[in-house]
């Protein structure tokens, strides 16, 4: 684990310090999460330390909690819808922005990225004002459209990065051999783009499923998504149920992309 150039004393000591700090930073990033996972198995009535025993009772409680189940279903549906629509729109935009030249392209590029740079509080207020101005109530549609806007920059960025790596000659070859533009896309570009699309779908799903700040503004009255439900529960007390819920969500949201990554790897492996 030695760096290439660390022969002098300051280099050796400096490198050691770098190594120690790196380990500490990784501990900093994962210790709180690990503690939450451990505490979810605590038998105690209270959410914190000390551990009084190991138990799965809080997971059982969770599955009987109507509000949590409802919030979970809401979030899943919204995330699925968002992922489907946002990926299609985003892939189209990414192709236009990488494969075509037109006036105002720079501006369009900036506009598409903008939602990632504007604070969510402002985006949240903006959409609410729009609804107020148009005299419309807050609805699920608003929530989904809002999530699509929030996730769009990430789809475009991920797909663009991959598109730049796909040589144009493949598409040109197909076109010169008589395939029309749609067939070229279906037979050449799309398969090569698949890993990025899988990654984008998963990314959008997690962005939507995880979103809290904007959702607090946009949700219809009385509706809770998973994160807003957790926030509401936290305001009452730090119950062990929240730890169990958190752990379950970690398993889902970390497991899903890892699975997706593996699928993407297999897909791209088969093509080569």
């Amino acid at each position: 684990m030695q760096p290439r150039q660390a022969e002098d004393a300051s280099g050796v000591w400096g490198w050691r310090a770098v190594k120690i700090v790196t380990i500490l930073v990784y501990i900093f990033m994962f210790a709180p999460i690990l503690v939450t996972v451990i505490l979810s198995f605590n038998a105690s009535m209270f959410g914190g330390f000390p551990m009084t025993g190991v138990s799965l009772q809080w997971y059982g409680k969770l599955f009987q909690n109507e509000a949590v189940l409802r919030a979970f279903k809401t979030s899943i549906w919204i995330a699925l819808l968002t992922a489907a629509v946002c990926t299609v729109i985003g892939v189209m935009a990414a192709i236009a922005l990488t494969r075509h030249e037109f006036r105002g392209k720079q501006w369009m590029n900036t506009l598409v990225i903008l939602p990632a740079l504007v604070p969510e509080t402002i985006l949240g207020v903006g959409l609410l004002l729009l609804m107020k101005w148009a005299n419309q109530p807050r609805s699920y549609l608003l929530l989904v459209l809002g999530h699509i806007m929030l996730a769009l920059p990430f789809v475009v960025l991920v797909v663009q990065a991959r598109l730049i790596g796909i040589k144009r000659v493949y598409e040109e070859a197909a076109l010169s051999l008589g395939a029309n533009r749609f067939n070229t896309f279906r037979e050449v570009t799309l398969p090569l783009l698949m890993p990025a699309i899988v990654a984008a779908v998963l990314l959008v799903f997690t962005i939507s499923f995880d979103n809290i700040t904007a959702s607090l503004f946009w949700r219809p009255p009385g509706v809770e998504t998973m994160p807003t439900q957790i926030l509401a529960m936290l305001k009452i007390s730090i119950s062990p149920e929240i730890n169990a819920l958190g752990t379950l969500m970690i398993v889902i949201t970390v497991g899903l992309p890892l699975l997706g990554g593996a699928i993407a790897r297999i897909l791209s492996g088969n093509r080569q």
Partner: protein
Amino acid sequence: MQQTRFAWYLLAPAIILLAVLLVLPIAIMAIYTFYEFVTAGVEKANYTLANWQEFFTDSYYHLFLWKTARVAAITALACAVMGYIPAYFIWMTSFRHKWLLLLLLIVPFWISFTIRTFSWIHILGEQGAINVTLKTLGIIDSPIQMLYTEGAVIMGMIHFLLPYMILNVYVSLEGIDRDLLSAARTLGCTSAQAFREVTLPLSLPGLCAGLLLCFVLAAGSYVTPQILGGNRDALFGNLVYDTIMEQLNWPMGSTLSIVLFVLLGIVSAIYSRYMGLSTIFKGLSR
């Protein structure tokens, strides 16, 4: 010509969506700042400067602005220090499982932000890991108040923003030609000098991109102060939320949103003038 039209067809759904959901609302917001607030949820379209006057004269708002800027700056700087070192390590190490270190940086993006934030309650709280450990060891008698303070808010934000910083710096480091380092060493630089004279300046774009991103995201935060802060630790985002969702004062809420939007826009504009925003996009797409 036909090519161009096709490109616009492809872009149309995204552009229409953003025009209606992003550009139009901000325009409405700008108009609303001149509306007159009558009572909760009711406003009149008499064009008035009252909201702006209130914002510019009431020190209550200035205090919030200042506190938010301070907290965001501390957070961004702490992220820079805590983020540069691991990025440097990952770049330099000959460790075989480097991919694992990189993967571990991505994993936090997948874990719910809400859960990551509230997990700090178990570290800093009265029944948290630190207090319980210290009490068991007999070092303290009564728990130290760490949760629901500004420090806890900053800690939570660092925890959330650190991966952005590390990835930004790492992308920038990856772009450095290693031969430059060998050249510097051959020409008699110590490793410390080589770092100072070659590596650090060349990785500055990534570091600055990370600083901007962390500052902007921290300054716009709403949930972290909600979960980890006390009443006194509310930031500008909380002020906006309360003004609109609790007081139903839409004109003032719009004014505050526009202020935040313009200020953060200025910060980003100054940045892109000197650095170009492309570095940030590179960092974001990782």
